[in-house]
């Protein structure tokens, strides 16, 4: 049977707003996070190979590039958590006014960077 359901228009035809930026970033970070979790699954699996085989992974994770990846992942997780919390609040029926969506969108964007720093400091036991 032919499905004539309309598809979503492609994102480039919309004018950019904070809400649309948060929305598309939510999807992109969601995909990044699940890819990262899959890599983490392989990282955990690599532990079964023993200490000697782990040396390369350790060197990589201690490199600037390795640290940059972990920092980027921290931001991606932070963004997803804040954006998910925003979605849950909206699901409860709050925050649909145009001005409020702009403010909460900004909180998600700026908050994700603040949360990244906080998580990094917390993880490294600086706070």
């Amino acid at each position, binding site marked *: *049977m032919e*499905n004539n*359901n309309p*598809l*979503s228009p492609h994102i480039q035809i919309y004018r950019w707003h904070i809400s649309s930026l948060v929305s598309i970033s939510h*999807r992109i970070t*969601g*995909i990044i*996070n*699940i890819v990262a*979790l*899959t890599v*983490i*699954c392989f990282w*955990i*699996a690599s*532990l*079964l190979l*023993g*200490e000697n085989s*782990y040396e390369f992974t*350790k060197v990589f*994770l*201690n490199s600037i590039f*390795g*640290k940059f990846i*972990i920092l980027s*992942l*921290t931001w991606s*997780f*932070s963004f*997803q*958590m804040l954006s*998910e*919390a925003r*979605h*849950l609040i909206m*699901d409860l029926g709050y925050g649909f006014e145009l001005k409020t969506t702009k403010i909460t969108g900004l909180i998600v964007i700026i908050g994700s960077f603040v949360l990244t720093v906080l*998580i*990094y400091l*917390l*993880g*490294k*036991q600086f706070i």
Partner: protein
Amino acid sequence: MNRATKKWLFLKVSSVVLVPLMAWFIINLVSVFNKDYIDVVAFFSNQPSKILVSLLMVFAYFFSALSISEIFEDYIQDEKIKNAANKAVNIFAIIMPLITIIIIFNLNT
């Protein structure tokens, strides 16, 4: 309750569970990622970590499978391709956490 409502409800419940699990995991990941082999294994093989990482994997893949199926719904018109894509994602979302949980419960310090 229709299928779309059920899917939406599952998405919301899993996201409520996921947010604190993600926060816990990312803080610990930052703390452990560049440590020695022994420390990394010790983290993944202690009892609370085993349970929390397992829960994170189950809920994260479940949530992702549901979210990705939403994206397929938005952008794929052909029903056959959409069903095949959904099946592939669902199989992946079952196998990955399952294998990881088996590995975590077999890790020993």
